[in-house]
């Protein structure tokens, strides 16, 4: 080429012009070719990189940040320092493996063909080009036209913590923290916004991302550099256990990220919690962030503790006047407590029950929702007192409320009273007939025992005997049960889970321990007849203290009276006493007794009637009945009678034959004597 230039200057000039044009064309073609070697990039809408994006908006993750090409317009000069992530264009005409872009990896190296890794991070472009040039001369013959330029600036950073897809991301050179978070899928629920970090080596930069979102001030965000780590911390409200939580619930518990500086709001507010301190926020704002006060809040004495100094804030006065001077100063770490209105039972002392003397209060204890001491005056009835105490609990025995006079002699009546609130509620009554209370007295609302006394003996023992009824014998759950005058026989029978399968329902006994004239009386109940007829008049009136006894069917036969049974004697399979009713006949009885035996005298079955006038006996010929089927031959049989089935030896014929046998024997004896 040099000879050509020297020998033919004009031709050489044209040739050079042509060559330059060709090289320019080739260079453009090479540039186009090298562009194809760059990883595919997504081009966002114009200007998208400078527009605020919702950090929670999840975007598809791509290897290169949107807007990378457009925003990497940093001028490439020989003094430009090569950084990790930079995309360099290496031009070496005539070599297919060059003339394209190469990216500086996270270690600061370029991976070049035939050369290998070349550390270029930290060098400027000129230095890097010289370093690469020297290395290329070892593998290539002519590298005089080798050039290096900065094609694009990119950031290789890592997003960690509460991001949706934490990990390394690649951004354009001028990307911000928000773009990095977006590349990591956005923030996860529970991320703490105001204390995010950028870690650069050992340096940690903490920034308030929430404030940036509020203001749009990009200066609040640290400028990213290669290999930075963006750490998104978790809010303390997420706790130490990894669970899926409801963001609404999370927000309701406050938004504070620092316990030391947060403002704690609790008491009678709808959502107690710790809230991030804001210098310009008033107590009203914190109360609003806590969901407002409840209907039970004592708004006239809200307690505020700021820097260890308590003070009281009257919200009601502030709302009435609008005077901002009434607002207390809220500092970081302030505690706000909204008390409730005066506690039930706390009326006696306006906060301290010790302030009221016992002779000015009435105590209410037991199965009441808010037991305690209540201030007393003559205008308050016992119903008012029970209502003020929240009313009886579900297990209260309201039919037996005990009113206990004071033991200190306050009041004249020292006898305990029983107040039947259940009867008053059910049947009504006059309020002026309510028991009169006096200061110093005590009201005890007893609790009912458990349904099954066998399961809770301890509570069962607490039940007073005068309100108990006793169920004994063949019942599913016999025992002592609470009972009131308003209850019915079937109520208490149901409480015992009903009679057992072996219960003799026809012979239930009820002992009225306080019967007529105060003496015990016994009532017999045919419960089977009640079940057959449904006649409520059969059921006796039972009172507390009564004893209900269900005998067993297999009870000793002595328990049955002679008027209730028929005696079957003689030659039957199962002689004995059998229950008998007026709808049955002798045939039913014989069948129940197993029938006559084989040696029975079935022609003369005797029935003895126990009658009022004159007892009588009749016979029944079972054999003849079987042959004729005449039911009119059946004798009358009632409970209390006796049936006798004789043995075959007692028949007339057998009696006659026996007589003949004896006679023949005697005659034989006489004949022998005559011969002698």
């Amino acid at each position, binding site marked *: 080429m040099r000879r050509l230039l020297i020998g033919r200057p004009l031709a050489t000039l044209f040739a050079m012009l042509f060559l330059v044009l060709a090289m320019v064309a080739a260079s453009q073609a090479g540039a186009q070719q090298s562009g194809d070697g760059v990883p595919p990039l997504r081009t966002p809408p114009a200007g998208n990189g400078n527009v605020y994006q919702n950090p929670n908006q999840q975007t598809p993750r791509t290897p290169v940040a949107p807007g990378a090409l457009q925003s990497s317009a940093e001028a490439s000069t020989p003094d430009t320092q090569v950084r990790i992530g930079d995309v360099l264009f290496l031009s070496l005409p005539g070599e297919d493996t060059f003339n394209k872009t190469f990216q500086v990896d996270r270690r600061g190296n370029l991976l070049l063909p035939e050369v290998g890794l070349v550390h270029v991070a930290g060098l400027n472009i000129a230095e890097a080009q010289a370093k690469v040039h020297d290395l290329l001369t070892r593998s290539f013959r002519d590298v005089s036209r080798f050039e290096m330029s900065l094609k694009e600036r990119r950031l290789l950073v890592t997003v960690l913590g509460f991001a949706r897809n934490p990990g390394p991301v690649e951004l354009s050179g001028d990307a911000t923290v928000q773009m990095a978070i977006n590349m990591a899928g956005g923030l996860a629920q529970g991320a703490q916004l105001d204390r995010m970090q950028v870690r650069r080596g050992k340096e940690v930069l903490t920034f308030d991302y929430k404030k940036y979102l509020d203001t749009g001030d990009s200066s609040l965000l640290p400028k990213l550099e290669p290999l930075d780590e963006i750490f998104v911390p978790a809010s303390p409200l997420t706790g130490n256990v990894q669970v899926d939580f409801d963001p609404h619930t999370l927000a309701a518990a406050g938004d504070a990220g620092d316990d030391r500086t947060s403002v704690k709001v609790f008491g009678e507010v709808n959502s107690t919690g710790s809230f991030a301190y804001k210098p310009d926020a008033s107590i009203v704002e914190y109360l609003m962030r806590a969901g407002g006060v409840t209907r039970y809040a004592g708004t006239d004495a809200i307690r505020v503790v700021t820097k260890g100094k308590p003070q009281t804030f009257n919200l009601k006065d502030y709302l009435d006047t609008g005077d901002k001077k009434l607002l207390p100063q809220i500092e970081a770490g302030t505690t706000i407590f909204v008390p409730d209105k005066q506690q039930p039972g706390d009326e006696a002392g306006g906060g301290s029950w010790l302030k009221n003397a016992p002779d000015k209060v009435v105590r209410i204890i037991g199965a009441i929702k808010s037991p305690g001491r209540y201030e007393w005056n003559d205008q308050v009835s016992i119903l008012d007192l029970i209502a003020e105490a929240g009313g009886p609990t579900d297990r209260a025995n309201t039919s037996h409320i005990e009113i206990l006079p004071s033991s200190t002699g306050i009041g004249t009546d020292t006898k305990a009273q029983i107040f039947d609130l259940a009867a008053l509620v059910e049947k009504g009554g006059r309020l002026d007939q309510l028991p009169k209370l006096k200061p110093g007295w005590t009201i005890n609302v007893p609790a009912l025992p458990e349904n099954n006394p066998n399961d809770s003996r301890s509570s069962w023992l607490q039940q007073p005997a005068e309100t108990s009824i006793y169920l004994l014998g063949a019942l599913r759950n016999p025992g002592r049960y609470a009972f009131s005058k308003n209850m019915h026989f079937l109520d208490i029978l149901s409480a015992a889970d009903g009679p057992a399968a072996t219960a003799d329902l026809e012979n239930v006994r009820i002992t009225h321990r306080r019967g007529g004239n105060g003496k015990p009386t016994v009532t017999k109940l045919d419960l089977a007849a009640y079940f*057959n007829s449904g006649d409520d008049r059969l059921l006796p009136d039972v009172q507390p203290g009564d004893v209900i006894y269900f005998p067993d069917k297999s009870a000793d036969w002595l328990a049955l009276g002679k008027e209730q049974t028929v005696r079957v004697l003689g030659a039957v399979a199962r002689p004995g006493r059998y229950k008998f009713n007026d709808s049955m*006949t002798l045939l039913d009885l014989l069948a129940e007794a197993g029938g006559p035996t084989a040696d029975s005298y079935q022609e003369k079955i005797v029935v003895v009637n126990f009658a009022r006038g004159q007892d009588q006996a*009749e016979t029944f010929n079972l054999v003849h009945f079987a042959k004729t089927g005449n039911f009119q031959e059946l004798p009358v049989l*009632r409970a209390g009678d006796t049936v006798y089935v004789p043995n075959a030896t007692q028949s007339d014929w057998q009696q006659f034959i026996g007589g003949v046998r004896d006679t023949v024997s005697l005659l034989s004896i006489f004949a022998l004597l005559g011969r002698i």
Partner: protein
Amino acid sequence: MPASVRPACLGVLALLSLAGCSSESWPSSGHGGIAELRPIPLPPEAAALNLKLSCYKALIDRYKASDAAVYANATLPRSDDLGIRISREIAGGLLPDARYDLETLKVMVVDLMEDAELPTDKVDQCAVS
């Protein structure tokens, strides 16, 4: 056998045979054990009691025919059972017991009449009959 012994033997034989006949006899056959379904002819006195019983039973049937029967009244099954008992007692000759039970039945019928708000004078008419 010597001739002198024969009359003695015959005497012993006769005595023994008669001894069998002299043993206590069995009671007579009974009847009326299911008289409410299988009535039997009655003597006049028993027939009068049976007439009274029929009168009470008619009143009980009248009670059953009224709407009152749908209401629970344990007296009704008891009166039915007692009617059966009285029928048997009348047929079986147990007249004193039948008279006593008829008085009990009368009280029951009055209870039923009052329960059904029916006139009770019919009961008295039965008692007179």
